[in-house]
């Protein structure tokens, strides 16, 4: 199997290298063939791995591929850890990636950067696979930064657009803030265990839980809490949790396929995956779990609200992604790691679907993204419409579709949780259900229902997208429905085995599992619970305001003007960060440069020293007059002085 493991990331990498370096030579067809082939191979092999480990119950594989370097006995390696968690991630990543690759043929059809785009997304797939397959912190960080890099390249794919190259710089830097915490977390782990290997580190979690670290003089902090919080800073960056969420909405400047693949289905879930992977550490820290839970719940609710007022179709979905990532994060905080990963999976399918459907709409409307200029598209684009309906119902959490199972599990789990802040978190994620349904169906009604609002010329040429676009939509719609039925196995069962560790006291999913009697019972129970009714209420509200009586939406906007403005300004995070960090850094830099370097060091010390030498020299030079009688005079004076001293001494 080792060759299979190795082939999974290398196949897309090979595709990326060929398409990237020889893109001109092999042409467009060559580029998409070679990358799709690479990803298809990876997908097929991922299924093989899934069967081998999950279905056939093979034991966990944990071995190094090569040793990157050894310093002081600290082995820095590249290696694979393949267990059921990895297997699940492999299948999800390669499947969505494959769908996006195929879809891209249609979406990027007229783009001059066609080969480059394929090279990048294949490279992304490689990086993401390395991240999820890692068995150590070094490679995790590698994958972590590598996906960030490709995200940077892809957000700025249209590099002549000012907004795109602003967004990609912003995304990279905000992610770097997360990585800053992450690398410190890794450093703390190395300090405490002198190892980068997951298994070794997890094996010592028990010992770490008892140790402390002194950060502020005299105050001892629990070491494992510090480690977990630092690691979580990394997760906040990558998984766009408040307050490091600001990059994700702007990342929509990139082409839509990557919004689906990177900024919805896979890369942004890396943080969630990482925390789940680190469950043996997080379980020891109540504080860290509480922070994770509250941050996740806050993100889920407040980012969902912003989604309600967005008019750009992609931005609505982007805020929805933020909110759903909040759900996953909150699940982790409640120790319901399996539920978080389960939601990661279902969300990957239906969110990729929604993004790709949005992309289908966008190409049909010649790159128009403003929903106020859409409407009535269901008549022109039936496949896009129906798949969007599936995606929307799944996202809103309607029983029978994937999102319902995963989201309901998370809400129930948080309800049971006793982690710090669980009470607040429960209310936030519960209310978010209403918000989710509201923005999702607002989008659906504005885009597909009502009167067409685009200009006549565009309307005349409206038609369904080509097969390369619609087939991936349909293929993604299928798991958007059926993947939810795995809830009993993945979330409540023993799917993850030893990959995820939950302590007895936190085991909310175990508690839920005792009451779980099959999917039908779960659905029946769900229909009597508040989330379902809140979702229906959200849909109904959306119908009233954005379809039945659109003038009510306008009236509401005017009456609730202050709230609306706050939401539209996205709570002012962007302005604040621009002023404080971007502007502040430049102000500090200019101050240090002009006052520290130019005036103090160079002006006063360096050139000052030169001036002093010059000044002294000028004075001394004054004595060298060249007149013989001056020198003779000085000699006489000197002689008298010497004589005087001699006589005095005698």
């Amino acid at each position: 199997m080792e060759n299979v493991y190795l082939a999974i990331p290398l196949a897309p990498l090979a595709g990326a290298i060929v398409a990237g370096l020889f893109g001109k030579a092999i042409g467009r067809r060559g580029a998409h063939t070679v990358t799709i082939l690479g990803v298809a191979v990876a997908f097929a092999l991922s299924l093989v791995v899934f069967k081998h480990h999950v279905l056939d119950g093979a034991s966990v594989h944990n071995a190094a591929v090569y040793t990157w370097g050894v310093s002081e006995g600290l082995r820095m390696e590249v290696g694979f850890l393949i267990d059921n968690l990895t297997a699940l991630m492999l299948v999800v990543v390669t499947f969505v990636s494959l769908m996006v690759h195929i879809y891209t043929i249609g979406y990027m059809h007229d783009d001059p950067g066609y080969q480059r785009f394929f090279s990048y997304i294949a490279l992304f797939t490689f990086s993401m696979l390395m991240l999820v397959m890692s068995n150590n912190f070094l490679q995790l960080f590698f994958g972590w930064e590598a996906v960030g890099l490709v995200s940077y390249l892809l957000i700025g794919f249209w590099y002549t657009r000012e907004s795109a190259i602003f967004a990609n710089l912003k995304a990279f830097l905000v992610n770097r803030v997360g990585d800053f915490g992450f690398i410190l977390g890794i450093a703390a782990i190395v300090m405490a265990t002198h190892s980068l290997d997951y298994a070794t580190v997890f094996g010592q979690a028990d010992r770490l839980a008892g140790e402390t670290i002194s950060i502020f003089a005299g105050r001892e902090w629990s070491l494992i809490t510090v480690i977990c919080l630092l690691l979580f800073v990394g997760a906040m960056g990558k998984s766009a949790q408040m307050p490091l969420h600001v990059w994700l909405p702007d990342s929509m400047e990139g082409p839509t396929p990557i919004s689906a693949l990177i900024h919805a289905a896979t890369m942004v879930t890396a943080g969630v995956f990482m925390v789940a992977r680190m469950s043996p550490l997080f379980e020891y820290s109540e504080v860290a779990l509480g922070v994770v839970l509250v941050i996740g719940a806050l993100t889920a609710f407040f980012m969902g609200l912003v989604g309600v007022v967005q008019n750009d179709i992609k931005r609505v979905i982007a805020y929805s992604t933020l909110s759903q990532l909040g759900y996953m994060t909150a699940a982790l905080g409640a120790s319901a790691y399996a539920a978080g990963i389960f939601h990661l999976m279902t969300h990957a399918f239906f969110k990729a679907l929604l993004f790709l459907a949005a992309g289908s709409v966008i190409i049909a409307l010649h790159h128009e993204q403003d929903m106020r200029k859409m409407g009535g598209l269901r008549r022109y684009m039936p496949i896009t419409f129906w798949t969007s309906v599936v995606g929307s119902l799944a996202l809103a959490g309607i029983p029978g579709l994937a999102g319902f199972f995963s989201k309901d599990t998370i809400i129930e789990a948080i309800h049971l949780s006793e982690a710090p802040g669980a009470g607040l978190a429960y209310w936030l994620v519960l209310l978010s259900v209403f918000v989710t349904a509201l923005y999702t169906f607002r989008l659906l009604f504005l885009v597909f229902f009502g009167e067409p609002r685009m200009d006549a010329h565009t309307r005349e040429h409206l038609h369904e997208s080509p097969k390369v676009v619609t087939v991936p939509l349909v293929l993604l719609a299928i798991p958007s429905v059926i993947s939810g039925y795995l809830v009993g196995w993945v979330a409540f069962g023993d799917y993850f085995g030893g990959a995820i560790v939950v302590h007895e006291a936190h085991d909310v999913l175990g508690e839920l599992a005792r009451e779980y009697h099959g999917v039908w019972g779960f659905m029946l129970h769900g229909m009597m619970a508040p989330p379902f009714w809140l979702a229906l209420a959200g849909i109904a509200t959306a119908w009233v305001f954005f379809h039945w009586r659109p003038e009510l939406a306008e009236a509401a906007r005017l009456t609730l003007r202050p709230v609306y403005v706050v939401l539209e300004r996205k709570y002012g995070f962007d302005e604040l960060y621009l002023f404080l960090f971007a502007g502040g850094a430049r102000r500090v830099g200019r101050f240090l440069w002009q006052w520290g370097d130019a005036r103090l060091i160079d002006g006063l010390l360096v050139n000052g020293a030169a001036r002093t030498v010059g000044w002294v020299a000028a004075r001394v030079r004054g004595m060298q007059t060249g007149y013989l009688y001056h020198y003779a005079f000085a000699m006489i004076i000197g002689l008298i002085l010497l004589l005087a001293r001699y006589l005095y001494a005698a």
Partner: protein
Amino acid sequence: MVDWPLLSLLIWVPIVGGLCVLAAGDGPGAKRIALGVAVATLLLSIPLWTGFERGTAEMQFTEFHPWIGAFNVNYHLGVDGISMPLILLTTFTTVLVVIAGWEVIQYRVAQYMAAFLILEGFMNGVFAALDAVLFYVFFEAMLIPMFLIIGVWGGPRRVYATLKFFLYTFFGSVFMLVSLLYMYSQSGSFSILDYQELRLGLTEQILIFLAFLGAFAIKVPMWPVHTWLPDAHVEAPTGGSVILAAIMLKIGGYGFLRFSLPITPDASAELTWLIVLMSLVAVVYIGFVALVQQDMKKLIAYSSIAHMGFTTLGVFLIFAILQATGGTVGAALGMQGGMVQMVSHGFISGALFLCVGVLYDRVHSREIAAYGGVVNTMPVFASFFVLFALANSGLPGTSGFVGEFMVILSALHADFWIALLAATTLILGAAYSLWLVKRVIFGKVANEQVAALQDLNAREFVVLGALAVAVLALGLYPGPLLDVMGPSIDQLIQHVTVSKL
């Protein structure tokens, strides 16, 4: 081949070759001879790597001949895991610099080429010398060709820059000479290895340490004696900047490892707070300063200072770790990280200066504002530039990551706050590197000059390609380099933890 006096050849082949180039005069032959000599030297340095015995900290390829018997001065050469990689870096970079100057230099070509070859010999001498007088001779001799390179082929303010460069560095090394002579008076030997064993009192050690600090801190350069570097870089021709950043700065870091630490371990421990402070200021303060530069070369020069801060930090972490934990766990990680950072910075800063050179040759401006949207007309160049900028911001998979990662890992053994301040480079480094990329490379074509740009020619492609391979190779597989320096670093750590008092 093993019996050849390899180190002597590495010193004298380029020097004699350089003299031949001078003799050949400004004909077309001069460049070819220069390239031949540079390549020959590179080839001669390869057996150094292949024949190097891993697993020992002993000096290798040693040569010993009496030189000035009356004062016990010897022609004594040898390399260990610390100096050998730096010699390879020198021979590699010199070839690239010769190629890079091929068409660009129109004026006194032979002298230009000769200066670089002679400089190469001197620098190899600095790294290989095991006798303090020999070291000092090479150390000072090195200044002359560089002085000429900046002074003759430099920009409009070259006179100010060369004087500043010369006086600054010369000022530092005078104190070093005094302390070398003092130690001769104590030991009766000029052997650096004897100095390392010489027992010295704490006051003596501190004075000697400060004298060395004067010499090496200016070379590195460390804050606050760094201001000569941006001026020198801005005025230097591209090749001069490359050699300056890639190799001459390393001599400072090398000096700390070869002289300060082993000769004055107790003073190093005593004053480690000062070095750590200066290094962290370099990382943070200089990071902010780099952010606001308008001139590409200045930006890269400041970024060099910040990156070299990691080297000095990594080298001196051992004492901070000793003081914090009482042990040396994590110290080798930092020291090796500092060493890797030196080699890596050699590649990356060299590459970035070459990139600026490529643009300067076409547009004749180093101002960031004069560019924008270069990717539209120079896509191949843009790929290289983005790669090197990312490497400069420490992206994993590139060499820039290795050293920073190891030093941050090591720093947390000493103190959380040292690690935290060091790790700010993740943000600051990315900010100034990628903001530069955004303004120069991305965007719409900014003006007619950018619109008229021609992409890389074959010569430029070879030079940048070679550096790209080096950056990626070291980033993906630093193991061999770590193995080479490991025993020497371990031995050094063992040596400095034993007090001389």
